[in-house]
């Protein structure tokens, strides 16, 4: 459907205006100007911040430069989450642009993974795709692909080529019509209040009675608190790609259209802003 294709395209081209500022504590030769960038929601921080690094290195001595990392309001940002998830989770209802602090020192080893090169990101990305396919098709589709097909997926993401990526990703989204969906929906539910990084369980797209499960069904099962009780103030927002889909949205459709390129449906549950 043309509308579905538009949704896919909108999801792919989702951008977040971001302002990178150098940390105050960094030693610089002269004052560093802030750097503005539109970050793709579906990509990874370390993959799209080469320009940022280059910008700030101009004002720094080479000996003071260690591995670059990012922080937002005191929270180190995990590069291995998609950018959109980081934004929705930490900065949903703040004023744009999103202000990120850039660090070149004191890497927080306990909070973040090191990212020495793009191949680490590629490995992480491919493993996510494989994990998702294991849930969806018992890994059959991804195992049938050749190495160059895997490469095409990664290159599509790296070079921001929508058509290149979806030409291959289409196969990962297929399912036998008689079953009405994937075996299990690959999803992750993120929240800020918990120590657990995210919730991930097995959940079928179709109920045993044969009716399609909705986003509400999933939340009822995984995160009952996210659903407002009758006549009560809404306490939590359920955000995917910066929007709040209705709870009656079928889960299978969401998985097919609102999943990130790593094939997971990343759902953020955040407290409703009080003001």
């Amino acid at each position: 459907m043309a509308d579905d294709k538009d949704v896919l395209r909108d999801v792919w081209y989702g951008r977040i205006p971001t302002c990178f500022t150098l940390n105050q504590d960094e030693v610089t030769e002269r004052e560093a100007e802030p750097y503005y960038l539109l970050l793709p929601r579906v990509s990874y921080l370390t993959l799209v911040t080469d320009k940022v690094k280059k910008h700030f290195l101009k004002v720094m001595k080479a000996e003071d430069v260690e591995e670059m990392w990012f922080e937002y309001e005191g929270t180190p940002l995990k590069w291995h989450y998609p950018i959109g998830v980081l934004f929705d989770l930490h900065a949903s209802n703040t004023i744009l642009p999103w202000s990120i602090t850039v660090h070149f020192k004191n890497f927080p080893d306990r909070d973040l993974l090191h990212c020495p090169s793009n191949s680490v990101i590629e490995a992480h990305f491919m493993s996510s795709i494989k994990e998702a396919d294991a849930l969806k098709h018992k890994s059959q589709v991804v195992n049938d692909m050749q190495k160059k097909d895997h490469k095409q997926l990664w290159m599509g993401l790296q070079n921001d080529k929508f058509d290149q990526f979806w030409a291959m990703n289409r196969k990962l989204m297929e399912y036998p019509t008689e079953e009405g969906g994937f075996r299990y929906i690959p999803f992750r539910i993120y929240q800020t209040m918990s120590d657990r990084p995210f919730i991930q369980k097995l959940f079928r797209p179709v109920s045993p009675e044969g009716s399609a499960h909705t986003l509400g069904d999933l939340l009822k099962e995984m995160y009952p608190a996210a659903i407002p009780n009758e006549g009560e103030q809404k306490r939590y927002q359920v955000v995917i790609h910066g929007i709040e889909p209705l709870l009656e949205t079928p889960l299978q459709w969401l998985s097919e259209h609102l999943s990130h390129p790593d094939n997971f449906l990343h759902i953020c549950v955040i407290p409703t802003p009080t003001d």
Partner: protein
Amino acid sequence: METWKRDIVRQLKHRDRNQHAMFQDLIRLYSRLLEKTSLTKGLLSSSSRHPSSDSSRSISSLVHQNNQLKKTTGELAYQVVELQQQIKIKECVLEQQHSRLAEQQQRVAGAFGARQVLQDRVEQVQEENGVLKMKYDLLLEQQKGAEQNLREENVRGGHLLEDMIHLKQQAAARMNSRNERKSRAREANLQKQLQNATGSKVTVDSSSSAPTSRSTSPKAANHSNSSDRGHTRLFRSASVTSPRILTSIKGLFDRKRRGHSVCSVDEDRMFPVGICLSARLPVRALQVLDAHEQGINTVKFSSSSDLMATGGTDRLIKLWDVRAGLLTHRSTLDGSTEGVTCVDFDPTGLRILAASYDKSALLWRLDDSVPKLTLTGHSRKVTAARFSGLHQVVTGSADRTIRLWDLQRAACFQVVEVASYCSDLICSENSIISGHFDSKIRVWDARAVSCVQELPAQGKVTSLDISADHRQLLSCCRDDCLQLVDLRRRSQERMCFRADGFKCGSDSTKAVISPDGCFVAAGSADGAVYIWNVSKGDLETRLPDKHSSSISAVSWSLSGEYVVSVDKSRRAILWSDI
């Protein structure tokens, strides 16, 4: 479109409007500004070093050129990246091809190795083939030699066969001529005798008894060698019935005929011919003795009545003198390698013939315990052996043949195939009579050796006996019945003798006719001797309680005085009427 989808599309548009569209231009412009300022800074720093009076226009053109160069560099960099990716892909392909090449080379090497192995095997097999070929040639040569030998041997065998056939033909011709001469002479003789007989008158005085029979009986006269007692007894027993006188006349006839025979020297030899006028019915056992080591199969009196022979499973033939009602062991004849089935004296009483389980028949002279001849040729046990004249012997065998033997050549000259097991046979004047297991008695012409008559019997024939006048034939069958047939009458008329308790004990049980033809005797499985009266046709007497096992044979002395019975438990009993 569903509500939720419409909602999503709307929210996405809203999001993009807020987050993307609003900031897009701003950020792009900011970036450009940032670039410009940094460039200006660079220029400023360079212009401070070279304070020449470059116009701002040249600077701007330089900036523009710089921008263009950067753009080109960016594009080139992008192309470089793309090309590098292509190189990577190509390298991948190249690597795969290299690995495939290596694999193929490995396989080629493997194939070479296999080919080497196969060539080795080919050489080996060729070598083996060569060896085999050599062997084969050698064998072929040997075979050629052997075939040559075979041909030569065949030729030699053919020559030998021809020689033999020639000799046989000569012998047959000789024999035919002799036989013809013999029979012609006999006929001439007979003719002469008949003429004599018709010419002379014979007066028969029916009322006279003893003196007449004494004077007319040539047998009595000839019995000079028999004992006085036997002589007187014979005299006493001579009765007045006409058939006996006729017999005595016939005996006279026989003697004369033999006396005038001119065929050969042997035939001229005189031998005693006993004629019994009246047999006496035995009532008592004179002597009971264990004659052999094992069961006794056969017993026979010689024609002179003072000698008896027994043959047993212990392979021996024993000769017994019969004097004064006692059996005295005279000598033992050995030579058979198996049990003896039948014994027979020759007409002169000087030789004895025995049939044996060892598939042969043996001939002894009475004064020599070593067999003079052994007649071999039968393929199974010989059941009967009889003299048929002085120089001819007939044997019957379980191999379903009857053989005729020439004693002078010690060879079989005739084999008669019969359909059935031959259990006993009898030689009459010109015929051979044989008894068989197929319940038939066959009469053969002695010259032509062809079956001239078949007489039926009730069961397996175990023995045959013929009366002294060659008219009556007695047969004993397994159906416990003795059968007497008149041979002259050629009728199916026959007498049967049965008795309660009489049971034929074996397949070779031998029954006899008394020498005067008035009685028949046989031993039973119950150990008793049964004697029937021929003229009355019923049981005359039964002699029980002496034998403890089945009686195998009985014999009646030609003088009529004695009966001997032998059994399977090596006992012999002499019976008489004394």
